[in-house]
């Protein structure tokens, strides 16, 4: 059994529920109006997938959304990024695209991207169609899930999928002169669809 550290950063517009997603994943709880604005500046959580242990270091980026020049300090060196949007806010989905572009440009070449359409429990307020987001994710080869930090739908899933998609070797610790394992990355591509339609 191997143990590896996975540095992950959460990006996306403010108010899409980044902190709530992390809370749900790490402590499996939800606070309606997160009474703490800050919370921990990073959290860790260990999960086991296919007999391997992954220790996530999740970097809280809340508060820096508008200050894009600061973002590279968060995602540089990250093995994975979750870009979250709010399914009830079209504009937040637009931002996803600009984040993807930036990460593809500036991030680690092997960075695993996952897109999370959060608040999917609010079906009647929906502005972003599931299909559109799904198609976009497929097109850029990113993982995709609609999640709800409130009902916990798919929150753990998206982290599991990330684990599976990580390149086989731990590139964060072997950055210098590491071999880039492209085959593995292609092999693992999409395996299954993650969430279909509304849960409620």
């Amino acid at each position, binding site marked *: 059994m191997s143990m590896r550290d996975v540095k992950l950063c959460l990006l996306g517009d403010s108010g899409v529920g980044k902190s709530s997603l992390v809370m749900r994943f790490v402590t499996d709880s939800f606070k309606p109006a997160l009474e703490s604005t800050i919370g921990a500046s990073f959290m860790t959580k260990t999960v086991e997938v296919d007999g391997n242990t992954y220790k996530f270091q999740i970097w809280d980026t809340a508060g820096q959304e508008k200050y*894009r020049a*600061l973002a590279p300090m968060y995602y540089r060196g990250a093995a994975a990024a979750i870009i979250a949007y709010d399914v009830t806010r079209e504009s937040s989905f637009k931002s996803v695209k600009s984040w993807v572009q930036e990460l593809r440009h500036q991030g680690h070449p092997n960075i695993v991207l996952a897109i999370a359409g959060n608040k999917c429990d609010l079906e009647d307020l929906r502005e972003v169609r599931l299909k559109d987001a799904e198609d976009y994710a497929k097109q850029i080869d990113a993982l995709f899930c609609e999640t709800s930090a409130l009902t916990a739908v798919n929150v753990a899933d998206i982290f599991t999928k990330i684990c599976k998609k990580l390149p086989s070797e731990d590139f*964060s610790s072997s950055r210098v002169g590491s071999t880039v394992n492209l085959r593995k990355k292609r092999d693992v591509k999409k395996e299954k669809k993650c969430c279909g339609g509304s849960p409620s």
Partner: protein
Amino acid sequence: RHVMNELIDTEQAYVSELQQILKGYYQEMDSRHMQHLIPGELVGKRHVLFGNLEEIFNFHNDVFLQELQNCRDMPGRVGKCFVNRKDEFQMYSSYCQNKPRSEALRAHIGDSNPFFKECQKKLGHKLPLGAYLLKPVQRITKYQLLLKEMLRFSGDDPVLENHIQDALDTMLGVLRYLNDSMHQVSIVGFNENMSEQGRLLMHASFSVWTDHKKEKLKDLRLRAMNRHVFLYEKSLLFCKKREESQHDGAVYSFKKKLKLSQVGLTETVKGDKRRFELWLRSREEVYIIQAPTLEVKDTWVKEIKKVLLNQFDQLKGKKIF
């Protein structure tokens, strides 16, 4: 008031974390028992690794934390704490500007070198140094969130609301400055004071031709040059992009500055729809600038026009819009 408590509690935690890093890594670099563990590449590079972390710690530990604690029971005074320390918060921009160098150094020596490992073990930290070096960046972006939260709960007290709004504006200004300064860090060879150029409005890459009436031979260029153009409130900088291998940010070498108070703008130029012109002294010096797309050109022309109009209005001493 719970936000007030959160502000103070997290400030305390922040100060103590900075202290741990300074004690557990920074000072350990002087320790005789640790010398043999320190990677050669790190020797003499402490200031690169930590930037001005010590200065930040001293400010928060000696000054800011006390000031916040003093108004735990008087939320009305907390706004002033931020407004009064506006200048001190600028020290974060040195920290952020150094951060890419620090990261490059850490990537070079690796997070799992024996020295870092030993320090981390001694401190009992779950996370490596890298996570802690990000703390100041996280902290400086959090104050505004806390202040916004306070504002939500101060609705019935206009005096309090005003104070907190001032503080919020101050901290948003600090962040804007920080954000802008991260772009500026990558312009080399520009010897004037950046802050005198005003805020950075936009930047993008263009093809540029120049035409100089007086020094025709010297400066006439038939071939287009690729220039990255930075538009500030007061000036426009032409730079040449240089790829930097050290870290993933691009570096720009400064080539030419145009003062916006002296330029004229021609919106359409024959030859290509994506072009526009900037000129000095009744077209003695002309810069033909071609954008990659028509959209880019239109946004730039619009923005430059706005700046020029603003200048004009200021000259007239009144604002039209």
